[in-house]
């Protein structure tokens, strides 16, 4: 046994959060996502042992190896149902899921949708690079039409998924969009997402320098693009405020998602509604009350009696 005393909680530092050096390619957008995650955790000072980082499979999904926290690297596309299990049974934890566009919108698309409507307490970050990175350049569900990949050497043809539309329609209760080159904005989004109760999801445009270089230059002012931030309604009653985006309006969020690429960045939608965790806890409460708060042994005994 180590003799280190762990009773007084130590301050959580970036250094303590760093694990393996990422195996990502130099310049990969995912590096800043990681840095930003460290920063936000440091700000929020979540107890170290209560951070839980979960991912599917993909370059982006190697995330848990690079964070020194309890973590799990699962199979392709199923991180969310797994994270749901962790969250529902462990209210003491802060559960984070990370993954790519293939993991989240292709093989995992259905889980994302059902997770969104069920609203468990967890934060999901999709590092969207519009391509399959780990398997070396196939078309992803977010690849734009015309993108030349190994599976579409003449250019992608299928209409891509619109992540924001999908999320809004699925009923996710916190939806934001950011860009891995915009660290400040990304940090703000992460921080707001984590504070949200229920299912919060952030799409981060995160460049794959290896297989889709320059994909997001249009959203990067340093590369000549524009990074237009959503102007949120403040409720100050002013005229300008009327024009601003109401993050509580689903139809406004949907309209915002309909903008031409690169679109706008920021919080598209936020709604407070009962989380799956709350709903199941209520069920437990009323179930236990109704059955007279019996312990397991008494509950089973009563049942057996009825079976006589």
């Amino acid at each position, binding site marked *: 046994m180590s003799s280190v005393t762990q009773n007084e909680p130590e301050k959580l530092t970036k250094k303590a959060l760093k694990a393996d050096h990422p195996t990502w390619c130099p310049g990969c957008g995912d590096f800043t996502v990681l840095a930003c995650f460290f920063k936000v955790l440091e700000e929020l000072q979540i107890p170290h042992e209560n951070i839980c980082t979960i991912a599917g499979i993909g370059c982006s999904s190697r995330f848990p190896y690079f964070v020194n926290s309890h*973590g799990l690297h699962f199979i392709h596309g199923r991180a969310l149902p797994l994270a749901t299990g962790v969250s529902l049974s462990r209210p003491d934890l802060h559960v984070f899921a990370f993954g790519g566009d293939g993991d989240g919108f292709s093989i995992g698309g259905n889980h994302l949708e059902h997770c969104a409507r069920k609203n468990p307490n967890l934060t999901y970050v999709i590092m969207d690079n519009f391509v399959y990175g780990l398997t070396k350049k196939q078309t992803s569900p977010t690849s734009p039409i015309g993108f030349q990949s190994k599976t579409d050497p003449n250019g992608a043809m299928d209409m891509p998924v619109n992540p924001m539309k999908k999320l809004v329609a699925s009923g996710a209760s916190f939806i934001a969009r950011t860009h891995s080159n915009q660290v400040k904005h990304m940090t703000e989004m992460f921080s707001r997402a984590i504070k949200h109760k229920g299912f919060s999801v952030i799409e981060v445009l995160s460049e794959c320098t290896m297989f889709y270089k320059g994909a997001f230059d249009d959203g990067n002012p340093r590369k000549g693009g524009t990074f237009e931030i959503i102007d949120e309604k403040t409720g100050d009653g002013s005229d300008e405020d009327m024009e601003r985006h109401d993050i509580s309006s689903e139809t406004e969020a949907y309209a915002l998602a309909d903008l031409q690429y690169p679109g706008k960045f920021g919080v598209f939608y936020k709604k407070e509604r009962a989380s799956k965790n709350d709903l199941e806890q209520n069920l437990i409460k009323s179930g236990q009350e109704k059955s007279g708060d019996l312990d397991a042994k008494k509950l089973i005994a009563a049942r*057996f009696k009825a079976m006589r």
Partner: protein
Amino acid sequence: MSLLAKKSASANGSNDIKDAVIRLAGNSQDGIQTVGGFLARLAGRSAQEVMTYMTIPSTISGGASIFQVRIGSGEVLSPGDEADFLIAFYQDSYENHLSSLKEGGVCLYDSDHVEPDTSDKRFTFVGVPMTSTTVEAIGGSARDRGKNIFVLGLLTKLFELERNKLVKIIESQFKRKHESVLRNAMLAFDSGYAYETGDVLSQSYAFEPGEAVEDNRITTDGNTALTYGLLAAGVRYGAGYPITPWSSIMETLRTELPKYGGTFIQSEDELAAISSAIGFAYAGHIAVTGSSGPGLSLKMEALGYACMAELPLVIVNVQRGGPSTGLPTSVEQSDLMQAIYGSHGDSPRVILAPKDVEDCYYIAIEACRIAKKYSTPVIILTDQSLSSRIEAFPEPDISDVKEPTLDLQMQPSEFRPYPLDSQTKHAPPGTKMAEGKYPVVTGLEHDEWGHPSSNPELHQEMTNRRRDKIKQLASSLSKLEIYGESEGDVLLIGWGSTWGPIREAVDYAKRNNQKVSSIHLRHIHPMPNGIDEIIENFNKAIVVEMNDEGLYGYGQLATLLRARYSNPKILCLTKTNGLGFKISEILEGIKNA
């Protein structure tokens, strides 16, 4: 060939019987399952052995259906090859089921609907205007409902069943409904009880007093027994997706778990269900998921993950007729190989199978024990026949039922979840780590700390380690007991719900001076050691199972045994007609082997 106990004329004039098989044949809306259930429960409360069996029609609602109940004073091990009594509600019930009636048996039919060929002298025909008498008794409003309870009254009289006990059971069943329901039921019951079957059945039958001794017996079906086994073993979390015949387990868990402070979630599909269950397991709980055939196929990838990451998990497979959608409401044991080998790669795991309804309870407890102790997925292979069949058995002792706890004790700096030299041990999230280094759980090959590695020697060592841990379990299992003599001509080997028919076959064969014994495997993978030594003392070992003989002539367990022991004595008797083994089929198999 009658395998069943014979009626013997007794002192009091009524025909005392040890054992009777009653088949109710009608439509699924007729409530024949309710009657069967009442009879089963009565038998349970009367120290009688009981076993039921039913078929479900392929139509969504309605359609022909039977419910068979076997009640005996001795041990009742199978639902019975042939019926002593057939109760036929309709012409087609009569036509389709007369062949299941034993020669000399009684056909009781609803004379409002059935016109039997009474010239058939093999049987005794008794016509009762069930429909019209019931309508008369409870008034026109109830239409054809209540006929089932009328028949129950009739049977109560016929078999001199304990009327008071039965009335109590009926009352407790209907008490939560509108009181008119109970009133009508009692009207129908009394009308049946009072019905005079006349000359033909003038001698009525009565059971000998039962042999079963325990006071506290409970009567329930296999799925319910299994569910309470899970609860008693401390399962508080689970996830599933509906499918017949697994659904009733998840429905009960979803209804019951909140009372225990737990949660069962209905997932969007089976892939999500097992993923959430693995999430529960990773979070430090003993978790359950389950399904039947098609749903199990969908769980194979994630199941392989649980083997690789060595997470404790119980997976229930209520086997049904396969392949594919197959025969969803028939019985089969054809998922054994998949349970062992269904995931890609070498992914050792544990397979258990219950032998009867009572064992569904205990096998669930054993599954949880193994899952926790060896940090491994454990698959329970139960089946469609056990799922809904009702049996009475001694109330389990629950004195050592404990509330499960979550172990979040701080882990020392030398913590290794996958030590090459000892047991797997996880540190669930929330655990403080003495050195501040947190573990990652992964499906990639990994080192003792759980860290991914593609080092060749390590992959070899870890593969060995995952296999050897299951071999350790094998050597901890107690030797199999032999039913019958420990040497002889034929050794029958069974697993799962063939337990009963095999025992009856052994009993019968022994009565006929054949040297037949049997062994039964509850632990299928790994199987206990020492089976070779048992086989040694017999001329033939016949593995009796409800699956196909495959390309090379051997059923699934037979294949495993032959591969392990390379003993050409190991033969097999298989069937895949969606029905359980008849005793006569096993005896025939012994003859032909």
